[in-house]
């Protein structure tokens, strides 16, 4: 699972910074902070390599119809479970579908799920957290109470329930879209809460900073204070949280496939492939080898990039 701990982790990494970094950050203008951060990030080789790798994966996903040698669901009943060959570079699965093509199309869905869900949580979480943090007082208390309560619902039960309810609601006809949407929905329900907490914390802190107080004293409207001063400042932590959330979403998608509630074949995602493959690890290792490596490297890249970003946005850690 790891949804919970993933957020916790980034939260923790951020708060340790906040304890000491507040005074320092207050002195630095937000623009120069950005430039500094990007400079630091550029120096971090692993993070840059990871970034390039992620761009590569995203490109592959985007160009899937162009570069995949076969359609993802094209069956060849006469060539099932074949090992790698010139015709099928990574071999074929139990229905004679080309694993390379399925891997490429799978990147598409996995990345879509991960990124889309992260974006929803970005939007919802930032809005919710910012409102809560900005207004403070009773609003904050009520909103955070709500998040705390939702947070205490066991993630697994909530997600499975949400998934089935969304899927059976009957609004969608296309089966792939329906499955995708229900996964998006289920994941989004949970993902935004961690983000909301982080953003709230950041906003609460930023509110106390001297330049915000100065802006307030100058009579600048609340909205423009939030959008011009606070949001740029909390962007760093938010981006870091996002980079940590994306891999945990990918994991969760594969977990849903494992319990039979995720995407199902013939549609392809990395979760579907991993789930089809691990069961026959002993008999047909080629089924799991390539999806396994793809998942591993991508997750690694996201985590490395997340680490790099965190270091970059946090001058003290370097």
């Amino acid at each position: 699972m790891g949804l919970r701990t993933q957020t916790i982790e980034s939260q923790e990494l951020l708060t340790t910074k906040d304890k000491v970094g507040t005074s320092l950050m207050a002195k630095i203008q937000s623009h120069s902070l950005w430039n500094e951060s990007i400079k630091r990030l550029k120096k971090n080789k692993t993070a840059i390599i990871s970034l390039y790798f992620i761009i590569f994966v995203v490109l592959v996903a985007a160009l899937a119809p162009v570069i995949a040698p076969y359609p993802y669901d094209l069956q060849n009943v006469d060539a099932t479970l074949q090992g790698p060959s010139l015709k099928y570079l990574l071999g074929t699965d139990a229905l004679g579908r080309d694993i390379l093509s399925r891997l490429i199309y799978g990147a598409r869905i996995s990345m879509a799920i991960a990124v889309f869900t992260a974006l929803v949580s970005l939007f919802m979480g930032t809005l919710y957290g910012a409102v809560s943090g900005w207004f403070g007082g009773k609003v904050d208390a009520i909103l955070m109470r709500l998040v705390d309560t939702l947070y205490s619902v066991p993630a697994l039960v909530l997600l499975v329930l949400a998934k089935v309810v969304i899927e059976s609601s009957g609004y969608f006809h296309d089966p792939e879209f329906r499955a995708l949407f229900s996964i998006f929905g289920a994941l989004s329900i949970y993902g935004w809460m961690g983000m909301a907490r982080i953003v709230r914390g950041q906003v609460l802190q930023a509110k106390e900073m001297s330049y915000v107080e100065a802006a307030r004293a100058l009579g600048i409207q609340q909205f423009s204070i939030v959008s011009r001063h606070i949001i740029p400042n909390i962007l760093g932590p938010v981006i870091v949280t996002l980079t940590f959330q994306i891999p945990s979403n990918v994991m969760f998608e594969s977990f849903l496939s494992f319990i039979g509630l995720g995407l199902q074949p013939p549609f392809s995602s990395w979760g579907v492939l991993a789930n089809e493959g691990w069961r026959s690890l002993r008999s047909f290792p080629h089924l799991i080898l390539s999806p396994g490596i793809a998942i591993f490297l991508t997750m690694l890249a996201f985590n490395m990039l997340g680490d790099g970003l965190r270091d970059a946005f946090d001058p003290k850690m370097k």
Partner: protein
Amino acid sequence: MKSLIVLVSLFLVFSGCTKSSKLKYGVDRSETLINNLQTEPPSLDWHKGTDTTSSEVVGNIMEGLTALDFDDPNLKPVPALALNWQGDKASRVWTFTLREDVKWTDGVLFEAQQVADGWERLLNPKTAAQYSYFLYPIKNAKAYNEGKIKDFSQVGIKILAKNKIQVTLEEPMSFFPSILNHHSTFPIRKDIVEKFGDRWTNPENIVTLGAYKLSKWDHDDAILLERNENYFGEKAKTKYVLERMIQEQSSALNAFDVGDLDILQELPSTELGILKKRKEYVKTPLLGIYFYGFNIKQKPLDDANIRRAIAAAIDKKEIIKVLNGEQIPGSSFVPNGMLGYEIDVGIPYNVEKAKEYLAKSSYKTSDKVPKITLLFNTNENHQKMAENVQAQLKKNLGLNIELKNEEWKVLLDRYKVKKGYGIYRLGWIADYSDPDNFMQIMTSYSENNHTNWQNPQYDELVKKALSEQEVQKRKDYYKEAQKILLEEAAAVVPIYTYVHSILVNPRVRGYKTNPMDQKIFKTVELVK
């Protein structure tokens, strides 16, 4: 770090003795058969359990009035707790003579009252037994189950003597003795059930009379059966049966391969191809069919010619090839190995004929036929089949099929309201060894008929066959009924007959697989 190393090495030392001859509960490996039950049985109360897991355990610790002769092609009932039985001419009144030498595991003698007690309990509305409808053929049984009759003596069950029980049926029924092989009709010890309440099925409380007795039951983990030394029949050859609950198929295969399981009951479909070639491989056709049905209230399936065209355009052999399975292509609605199975009934695969049917339909050409929805539950194999059918109908007739999958219970909900689908799937495994089991599905009064199709003539034929004792006549009735169902109305298309594939460790001898998929261990012998 150091502590970790010490720890790991200690663990490894301990793990050195995993391959000991003693198993869980201290039983000896050489006298224990290990089978995979797969999941926790919902209940070992034979009046309440409905799962195959429940019936597997109950089938080894209990006996019914009759047993089935698996060597007989028609699976005719043979004596078990009943020594013999006699039906009257119309097969409405049945008299069973029971054995008098049978003792329960607590030493109490078996008698007719316990059979009647069992049936009373099954039918009692307070028990809320899901299989109570099994005894609905008995006179007034249904009314008693509905609570309309409070007095059980009005139900057609009469104890004639300590060892004689007489049953009067509502309608004549030729195969009533076969039903008494089902676990829901087994006798029961009312005193035990009353004494312990819901806990009467715990190993320390339960009282049974089968070849094995329940020795240990660790929920979600394992069940241990021990030989019943006072069993009235031939004693079990193996002292213990350890039933493990390994749900994940690949984990079960792992356990089988390291020798922790003697029989592997479900084979992972991806690996079937290589498992088929192993010498441990055994396959048995089951009394069960997989079929597609048409919702005849849904356009364009209200047109019989469209239904016929679809039926003729599906190549069942190709579907089985896609599944990489061993199933037998379906023809009649009654599966292979059962009375009423007909090779020449139904619409065979014939693309030319299919096109003719389409031309005869009110739509004339395929482009005018609206899209048809095929509904199935989310599962890889159903998906594979549905995709294949979709491709075949596109290729052979040019029809557009839309696939729709639903989570299992959601699907059942759609079936209940009989809406929202054009074609649906259903699998049906026999509960009792009579073709009525299958034929009644499509009657107008069946809850399992999701087609909206009704035909009084069909209902009449099924009813007639029910009461007919002469085998040839029954066969004719069923043939006629199936012709109506499959050819004239084309309401359903049988796709295949199920085949059960298993792996059996060579040290296991005498394990008899059978078409009812009853897993009976008393004949099993273990060799070194």
